């Protein structure tokens, strides 16, 4: 799993202190694991094995169980995300309006597969399920920017904004 990562883990002591505080706050509560993982991912951006170990030791939950939970839910990721997180909605409303072609175009343009991150850490690409903006289908997001009513011709222009 670690070998898949294109960027080595470089957590800071400050991040570790924040995670310890989160663990201390939840420790002992029933069903604490998933809320802790949510917050850990907010701190680090992803959940590499190093972070899972810290959670395991802190909550005294076996690492295998944590790995099981992390890999079960699509929100949790063991790979780092890019500076610009591109997400294309593949919900039904967007799909019937052609978001499958949109994602193919982006893949071709930046040479990424879904779920991966470019080696320079700039872009990552995800296919998301419905983000609920079906009225604007097809929709993609780059970080917090939402682009709706897309056509294939829009893609290059949108990506250019982030290439600089």
């Amino acid at each position, binding site marked *: 799993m670690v070998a898949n990562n294109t960027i080595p883990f470089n957590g800071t002591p400050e991040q570790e202190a924040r995670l310890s505080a989160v663990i201390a706050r939840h420790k002992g509560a029933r069903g604490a694991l998933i809320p802790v993982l949510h917050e850990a991912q907010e701190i680090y951006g992803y959940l590499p094995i190093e972070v899972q170990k810290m959670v395991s030791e802190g909550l005294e939950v076996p690492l295998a169980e944590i790995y099981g939970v992390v890999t079960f839910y699509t929100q949790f990721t063991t790979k780092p995300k890019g500076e610009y997180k591109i997400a294309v909605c593949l919900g*039904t*409303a967007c799909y019937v309006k052609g978001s499958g072609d949109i994602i193919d175009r982006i893949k071709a343009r930046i040479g990424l597969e879904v779920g991966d991150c470019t080696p320079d850490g700039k872009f990552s690409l995800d296919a998301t399920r419905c983000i609920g903006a079906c009225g604007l289908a097809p929709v993609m997001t780059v970080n917090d920017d939402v682009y709706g009513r897309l056509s294939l011709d829009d893609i290059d222009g949108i990506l250019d904004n982030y290439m600089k």
Partner: protein
Amino acid sequence: MEGKVVTMNLVRSHVLICGGTGCTSSGSETLIAEFDAQLKKAGIEDEVSVVKTGCFGLCALGPIVIVYPEGAFYCRIKPADVEELVREHLLKGRIVNRLLYEEATGEREVKPLSEVQFYKKQLRIALRNCGVIDPERIDEYIAFDGYKALGKALTEMSPEQVIETIKKSGLRGRGGAGFPTALKWEFAAKQPKGVKYVCCNADEGDPGAFMDRSVLEGDPHAVIEAMAIAAYAIGSEQGYIYIRAEYPIAVKRLRIAIEQAKEYGLLGNDIFGTGFNFDLDLRLGAGAFVCGEETALMTSIEGHRGEPRPRPPFPAVKGLWAVPTILNNVETYANVPRIILNGAEWFADIGTEKSKGTKVFALGGKINNTGLVEVPMGTTLREIVEEIGGGIPNGKKFKAAQTGGPSGGCIPMELIDTPIDYDSLLSIGAMMGSGGLIVMDEDSCMVDIAKFFLEFTVDESCGKCAPCRIGTKRMYELLEKITSGKGEVSDIENLRTLAGSIKATALCGLGQTAPNPVLSTLRYFEDEYMAHVAEKRCPAGVCKDLLQYTIDKDKCKGCSICAKNCPVGAISGEVKKPYVIDPAVCIKCGVCEGKCPFKAIARK
């Protein structure tokens, strides 16, 4: 509420701006800031109140702004329009005609929302406050009879009477299967006294459905109030709302709403001085469709992989942390306060014989008015598509509507007059589901759609039971084979056999319903499957492996634009002479078709 002075300034105009996810994505936050700035500039910021509301429903035309008292319904408002709206409408009292909502007939005029074509056939019960109140202010909810139903239940009704009222109303679960809500409550209430839980399923997993999100964003207190009523009915003191982490706005508004309800003593200890205690917590989902299944959802709240458990025991007997638990969906809860206030008979009068009340649908796909609609049960699909939805864009023909998402089926043109209720939908091989309603036109390939849903289920299968883990994968592979032009006639029979086995043997609702999209498209569109298999042809022109791009010699002017844009260099020719596409190199990306100024490139 002791010592709290609630002030609501008297203003001459209200500007309601939609703050739902659809309109926020279209830029309504910037719009609010611009209104504040322009009102200040005009010096009328004390006379006009800007309210950020929940979803109005007409997401396609967002951001939406309604100005009262006139009721002017403005659409697709850009920040640059705000100065004019403030100057003309709010300062001088002149409606800005060019920004008003335009009916299909082309008319633009100010009229009550109930007369706008999109709203005419709608009846808003679950969505009653969405787009009307500011969801971040509990006072506005209370001003619209909020928490009155809880007060009535706690002070005038016994828990048995609450359950009896819900039973008489005929309310059925809005999350998919349509199980009678009161029965769940009754089972849980009959369990011995002790710790019990009330849960809300806000893990809206159906891709293309956003009813629950809109209720939570537009009217979070309605769900909180209903959960407190349910808790009173079954004897519980703790509730959990399990909500998708992908809905940040809904999560934020729920947190604010819970805080405010606690502050007002509407959650916590000794509510309304009756000795009834109830507390509520949020649990964020983490993106797993199977967690919409009730036992999987509870396993997830407990902090594990969200895998379902065999039933019985049912959650009402042994649910969350092995104690009696009820779980209802957001929309189901949103109906409860109104039923308690208006009475069971009022609710039972709406809808059809076995499906009472209304249903909210997220209307999407190839339709003009994409958005959120709430209609009485028994409304026909034709009324929804043609009258409320405004028909299909670009003069295309309606082909089918898909309901119920990955568990549901499709309704073809010949059944468009079917009344929409639980039982009629089941009888034609579709299902109500949570309320996603995706319209497809002649350009949609039904085999491709079935494959899309199967890919989804393969992805989302939790892997616990073999029929779902392996069976859906095999079905997906057969569909992949058919859409790539390698299908055989026997594959269609194999699909049917596999579907039957999976339906009969899978552990939970996800697996048991996973074959539905295939079965229902086979039922109504078998000819399309046959075209893929026997003629190696995709009638809708979607399946790439069965397509070929060709250049029409007579239309091509030899401008070379297609060749310049082809990413793989499959197009060659001499300038001013017809170009040709080499099918061996062509990757069928469709770029040339879009770029050709003479429409000389055809897809077959």
